[in-house]
């Protein structure tokens, strides 16, 4: 347990600059878009006021501004997603390739090798959740900035859930309903574990392993998607109720998850080659 935590710390430490940069990019994009948008709105209102003075008293709400600059908010989020998706592979492959082969050291640590797997998994999840948390924090800061630069008498208060709803990406990343949250992130974690196991298959069997890994991923996807389609979740005359079909799929996911983790641990302890 102790060594597992040390490994997690090590993995996070190695990614700290990238993670920091992603947060920095997000902050710069969003805050500058916000300030720019508010300022142009205010100056536009002053223009309009020459003809229609009442526009100087129109209300401005934070969530409307966020809605109007969605694009600039989403770009850094997409960049973060792309970088993290790439790092899911790199977190393993960087230890094999290059001038140093850190995987030698990792595999020779006097600890169960599953800790290496779990540490990398934990690290990725930590990155995801810390970026999401950072985004939430950033929204609070952005609202403060908004309150500072917009004249107090023109601020129309907006609810936090309206702000979330104002951006497509926020709606997906920060679901309002808890079961939706569990569903999205559960599916994400499962995909992550399946990819990890596929990487380990490739690392264990090399050239032939690529075929095995592709096959494995295909089987996993098929096992989840096929029952949904064949049992007719989209048909009203299906034999089973939608809840029952979801139950079956949930069961399949649980089995896949357990099998993937088990296979990953086993490959790492018995089959992996440096």
């Amino acid at each position, binding site marked *: 347990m102790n060594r597992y935590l*040390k490994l997690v710390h090590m993995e996070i430490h190695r990614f700290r600059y990238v993670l920091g940069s992603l947060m920095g990019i997000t902050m710069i994009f969003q805050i500058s878009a916000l300030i720019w948008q508010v300022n142009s709105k205010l100056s536009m209102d002053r223009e309009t006021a020459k003809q229609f003075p009442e526009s100087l008293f129109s209300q401005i709400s934070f969530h409307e501004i966020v809605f109007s600059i969605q694009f600039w908010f989403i770009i850094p989020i997409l960049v973060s997603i792309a970088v993290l998706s790439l790092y899911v592979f790199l977190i393993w492959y960087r230890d094999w390739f290059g001038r*140093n082969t*850190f995987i030698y050291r990792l595999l020779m640590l006097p600890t169960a090798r599953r800790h290496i797997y779990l540490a990398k998994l934990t690290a990725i999840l930590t990155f995801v959740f810390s970026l999401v948390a950072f985004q939430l924090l950033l929204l609070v800061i952005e609202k403060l900035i908004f309150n500072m630069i917009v004249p107090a008498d023109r601020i129309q208060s907006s609810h936090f859930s309206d702000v979330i709803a104002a951006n497509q990406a926020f709606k997906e990343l920060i679901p309002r309903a808890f079961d939706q949250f569990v569903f999205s992130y559960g599916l994400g974690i499962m995909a992550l574990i399946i990819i990890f196991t596929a990487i380990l298959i490739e690392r264990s069997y090399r050239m032939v392993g690529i075929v095995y890994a592709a096959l494995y991923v295909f089987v996993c996807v098929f096992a989840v998607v096929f029952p949904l389609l064949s049992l007719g979740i989209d048909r009203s005359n299906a034999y089973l109720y939608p809840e029952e079909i979801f139950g079956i799929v949930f069961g399949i996911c649980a089995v896949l998850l357990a099998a993937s983790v088990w296979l990953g641990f086993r490959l790492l302890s018995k089959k992996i080659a440096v």
Partner: protein
Amino acid sequence: MIEVKNMSKSYLRRHVLKDVSFTAEKGQITCLIGINGAGKSTILKSIMGLSPIKKGQILVDGQPLDKLTYEKVAFIPDHLTMPLGMKLAEGLQFMADFYTNWEPSRAEELMDFFQLDALEKIGNMSKGTAAKYNLVLGLAQKTEYVLMDEPFSGIDLFSRELIAEVFSSHLIEDRGVLLTTHEIGEIEQLIDKAVIMQKGTIVREFNCEEVRSAEGKSIVDVMREVYRS
């Protein structure tokens, strides 16, 4: 004692190792000799569980490999195994964090002996310095066995001399050492036992002093016999 029994390994139907058996005793320096590609490194990696074997058995003091073996056997590969972004001192700290057998005083002694700068980045070291740092990482663990892969290859003369000095010091004393080399050169007098390999098999395994006594042959003489026949 490290025992390798009937070990075989193949990759894409090609034999990498074929029925390899030998032992490396504690308190002795055993040397795997063979040209590049003979399978020496693969043997070391297999002993450390870094490369799975198809057939055979590897025992360390009668026990099969498990996680505790890594506190008992240290492996010094022929290249760096630490993230390049770390400083040397951070690498040592990493080792201290994970290995209960790590001896900080010994690490310090070795860093001084090799004149390494703890504040340097691992990625900035030259090949000779990297080899020395690898030795620090391996030898500062208080293990009973040390495996070294080509500790002398591709390194300047003075680094080689310095590394050879380690072999006749208390840092090696009483441990079992298993090293590989493709040129026996300056370590001829250092080793107790030679295991000569060719194309994934072991062709001779002998005690060096015995062969000198009984046959008046040097290790190079025996190698010449093997490779010319």
